[in-house]
């Protein structure tokens, strides 16, 4: 143990991840994050309305929801940059109100908008960030080189940040958030605004971190992202948690195995009142298409043909979290 960690018995950063410290605040739980009735108000507006959740060591936990659902406010409270308005929150066994600085020392934060220093090089961004955590310069340099390699930016180390692509900047932000070897990573919409290729590369890196046992907490409004990365997630809508479980559990609980999507020529769908009744377990009418939920999608298509329905296109697919969200809130994730 280094000489810098002598104040509290068992207060090593590394030990915490394996077994959160026996601090009074965390006595009742082994969770890295423990929230009960967590609330955030801005004046009259309630951004987060009494939510409960726990994040266990080593899991990838997601907040899925549309813009304005309260995901970012929740992340900021966990990240100790926004005080809680009500309820209880412990992060790494500590109280953000009292121990914000200590908690932040052990978090890796990837904010929604890039906060890189454009006046510095890629490598310098990592070095100075390591210095914020009080790491010695040679250690910062060693970790910076490792991390540049990990996010595949080694050959850009000496370049300024500004000309980098959006995907490269996100990767650099992720590398930066790892410089203190965090016990917990907070990623707020890590791939929003990136092209598909850049997203897949980023997902691959996050997946590797997960494999190494890093605890990830992320927000997203992409259901594919949530399905790819999250072991467990909560669906948020209008400041509240409306469902919780693994992606598979949520789909099983709130949707059918398959979905048949029917698209009709413009103007036709409005005339088809009642003609889908009994074809599927559940029917959702969206402005541009009709979704028929059933365990056997093909059977629904056959049934529809039998009734003389002639959609322009038919798609049978597996249920996704998008369908779960639609079921729970009556709305799509991305408008």
């Amino acid at each position, binding site marked *: *143990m*280094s000489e*810098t*960690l*002598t*104040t509290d018995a068992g*207060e090593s*950063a*590394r030990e915490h*991840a394996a077994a959160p410290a026996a601090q009074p605040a965390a006595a009742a739980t082994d969770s890295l994050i423990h929230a009960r009735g967590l609330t*955030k*108000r*801005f004046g009259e507006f309630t951004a987060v309305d009494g939510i409960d959740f726990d994040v266990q*060591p080593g899991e990838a936990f997601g907040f899925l929801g549309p813009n304005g659902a309260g995901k970012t*406010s929740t992340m*900021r409270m966990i*990240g100790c*940059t*926004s*005080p809680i308005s009500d309820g209880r929150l412990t992060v790494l066994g500590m109280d953000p109100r009292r121990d914000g*600085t*200590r908690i*932040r*020392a*052990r*978090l*890796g*934060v990837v*904010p929604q*908008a890039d*906060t*890189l*220093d*454009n*006046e*510095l090089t890629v490598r*310098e961004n990592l*070095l*100075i*960030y390591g*210095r*914020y*955590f*009080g*790491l010695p310069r040679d*250690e910062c340099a060693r*970790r910076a080189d*490792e*991390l540049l*390699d*990990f996010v595949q930016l080694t050959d850009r180390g000496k370049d300024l940040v500004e000309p980098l692509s959006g995907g490269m900047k996100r990767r650099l932000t992720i590398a*930066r958030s*790892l410089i203190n*070897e*965090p*016990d917990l*990573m907070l990623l707020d919409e890590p791939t929003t605004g990136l092209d598909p290729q850049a997203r897949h590369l980023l997902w691959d890196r996050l997946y590797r*971190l997960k494999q*190494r046992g*890093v605890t990830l907490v992320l927000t997203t409004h992409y259901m594919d992202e949530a399905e790819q990365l999250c072991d467990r997630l909560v669906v948020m809508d209008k400041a509240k948690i409306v469902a919780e479980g693994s992606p598979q559990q949520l789909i099983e609980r709130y949707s059918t195995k398959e979905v048949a999507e029917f698209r009709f020529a413009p103007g036709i769908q409005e005339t088809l009142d009642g003609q889908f009744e009994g074809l599927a377990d559940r029917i959702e009418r969206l402005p541009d298409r009709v979704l028929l939920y059933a365990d056997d999608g093909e059977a629904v298509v056959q049934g529809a043909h039998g009734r003389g329905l002639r959609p322009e296109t038919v798609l049978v697919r597996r249920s996704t979290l998008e369908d779960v969200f639609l079921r729970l809130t009556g709305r799509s994730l991305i408008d």
Partner: protein
Amino acid sequence: MSALAGAEGARVTTPDPRIVSGWSTMARVVEHRALQYRRTFRASIFGSFGIPVLFLTAMGLGLGGYVDKSADAALHGLTYLQFLAPGLLAATVMQTGSFEATFPILGGLQWNKVFHAMFSTPIRPADIVYGNVAWIAFRLSLVGAVFGIVIVAFGASRSALVVLAVPAAVLTGLAFATPIMAFTATQRTPDRFATLFRFGVTPLFLFSGTFFPIESLPSYLQPIAWLSPLWHGVELCRMLMLGTLFETPLLALVHLLVLVTLTAVGIAFALRTVEARLVKG
């Protein structure tokens, strides 16, 4: 749990911020600013020499040649160059301080959001304020020292206390920089900076006894100079460079107190506005 590859063997752990002093966290903010500055250091130092040389040549020697011929009693037997030099020193450092408290601070809060990045680590809002004030003090010391060297080279100083005129000028710069930093932290765009410079910084630059004694102004305007922080800085620098400090020590103390008070009040406000900006509700 290590997030990095090859986590075997002895590794350095992240220090617990409880046992890291406030000085140290503040110093990391200064280190960041220094890292940014390294890239523009040469050009900046060159510019720091250019401005005083140009001003002292054009105004001190050029314009001063005419002024000295008319032998005005208002200058109390000084050459115009000797009168001008301390005023320009204080005013230039003041201008640099004002600039450093606007765009670079707004940048960290609004554009590249570097201060937000700092705040997601053990760095606290107060560290960001003190670190930036310390950095600005350092920048102003460089500008002031270079200006002082040029003044001595021009033979415009009459006292060895010119050495103390540099910190006096730095203090003048901070008396502007800290309240302006507090103001900057309330802004989201640089729109009001133009107003600040046009109606605040520039008039003070011109009417604070920098280029002419305030006695030359109509008598009803003279008390306004007392309200100008720059006038106090200019007078203090002038006392030091002309060696007249000990003729009116109480007055010098008043000047010093005004500047220290403004700096302290500015920091107190900046601590509040910067924290309010970084901490979300």
